[in-house]
């Protein structure tokens, strides 16, 4: 479905995740974060950069990965993106949430 955010039309799925990463930019990320009650800081963006890096290398995202990332520890990850940090961080980053086969 279509959605207008940060003055741009984007394509999202029924859960609000972008279906085409090429449509993503920082302003869209910022607005998506606001919709989820998160004000983005430099620290938040460092995490999003890390997530983009993993996504581009097709490496799966996991809490373990965060722990070993050297970017931040898990407690901080939870405090930056409260309640389901991977789910929220991927949504803001404009990439699909971690999935299983079904």
């Amino acid at each position, binding site marked *: 479905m279509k959605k207008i955010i940060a003055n741009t039309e984007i394509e999202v799925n029924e859960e609000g995740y972008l279906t085409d990463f090429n449509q993503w930019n920082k302003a869209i990320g910022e607005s998506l974060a606001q919709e989820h009650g998160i004000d983005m800081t430099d620290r938040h963006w460092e995490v999003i950069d890390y997530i983009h890096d993993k996504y581009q290398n097709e490496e799966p995202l996991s809490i373990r990965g965060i722990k070993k990332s050297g970017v931040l520890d*898990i407690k901080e990850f939870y405090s930056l993106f409260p309640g389901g940090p991977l*789910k929220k961080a991927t949504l803001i980053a404009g990439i699909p949430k971690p999935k*299983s086969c*079904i």
Partner: protein
Amino acid sequence: MKNLVILGAGTSGTMMANHLVHKLPKENWNISIIDQYRTHYYQPGFLFLPFDIYKPSQVKKKGEKFIPKGVRYIQKRIERIVPETNQVLLEDETEVVYDILIIATGTKIAPEEIEGMKGPEWYQSIFDFYTFEGALALRDKLRDWEGGKLVVHITEMPIKCPVAPLEFAFLADSYFKHKGMRDKVEITYVTPLGGAFTKPKATEALHYLLEEKNIKEVTDFNIERVDYESKRIIDYADVEVPYDLLVTVPTNMGDSLIERSGLGDDLNFVPTHKATLQTKQHENIFAIGDATNLPASKAGSVAHFEAEILTENILRYIKGEPLKEEFDGHANCFIETGNGKALLIDFNYTHEPVEGTFPLPGIGPLKLLKESRANHMGKMAFRWIYWNMLIKGIHIPFVSATMSEKGKNFEKVKEVSS
């Protein structure tokens, strides 16, 4: 003479040995397969052991039986791969030289990764069922368990078979019903993902199963530790789930050999090109199955399709031709839902499982993404297919290595997502 060496004689390695022995000219090529273990397990059968549906003898056979004549079978522990000199070092300090290497060393559980998991309660009140030993210990536990809180739990992704924990929860519901004690058991499914089902079509078609079977769902649970004394699992957001019996899928990791050889990622999986199965670091090293870091399921079903494509790519590599970028992440699995029924799903890297018919478009006889007795019979028949066709590299009729889009309802998906 040239040497092709396969590391690991599990599902993938055995399939590759059987494919290649017929394809590589004997006058030019020696094929060797190295594995320290003597038993070949039918791993999908581990799901049925705890419920006394399969007997241990139905899921294990001597590995030797499946290694074809003309392939050298070396039963020794592998110490290290040395890509610089194209050598594999074995435990007794002997060396095996290779021109082409296939890594098929699989995935292991690593319960020691989570504090309190592999402690004094391991195989007392905390079990896995992704190993033969774990599944049997759990069978013995369930035989006289009097009920309480059963928690079925996934530690972190990726895991060998992402749907097996869900099947375990469904079969547990059936098992306790048949024992007349379902009212004494509370079943909770705990996952680090956003739900037991994570894809839109599957969620829509299958979420009723959880409600029907009265299975509670705890989602986005990233375990930090097991408090085995008070019998609770605790996540990083301090959410606690109490249990009497914890059936967990521990962290899955590639073999420590990969770490020793410096060929793996954080989880000891080998970075591999997802369409060709050539490793990213060395062009004469290929990897297959759950030893790779491919963004596909780590199940034997995926390995089966990979084997056909890898065989072709090895032949191309030998001839100096470009590799075929053909592997599309195809997987095809039966999912037990209990009470003698099962589902069938067919999907790949880009297409989620949808409804339709399989393997013949419009005819079936199997229905996709719907519960049926026929699918359950398919799952049961698959054990025979595995031992007699699949690992011997015999092609299964009508089932292709890449996914067919025929006979499937993809239009519905488009409607949902647009």
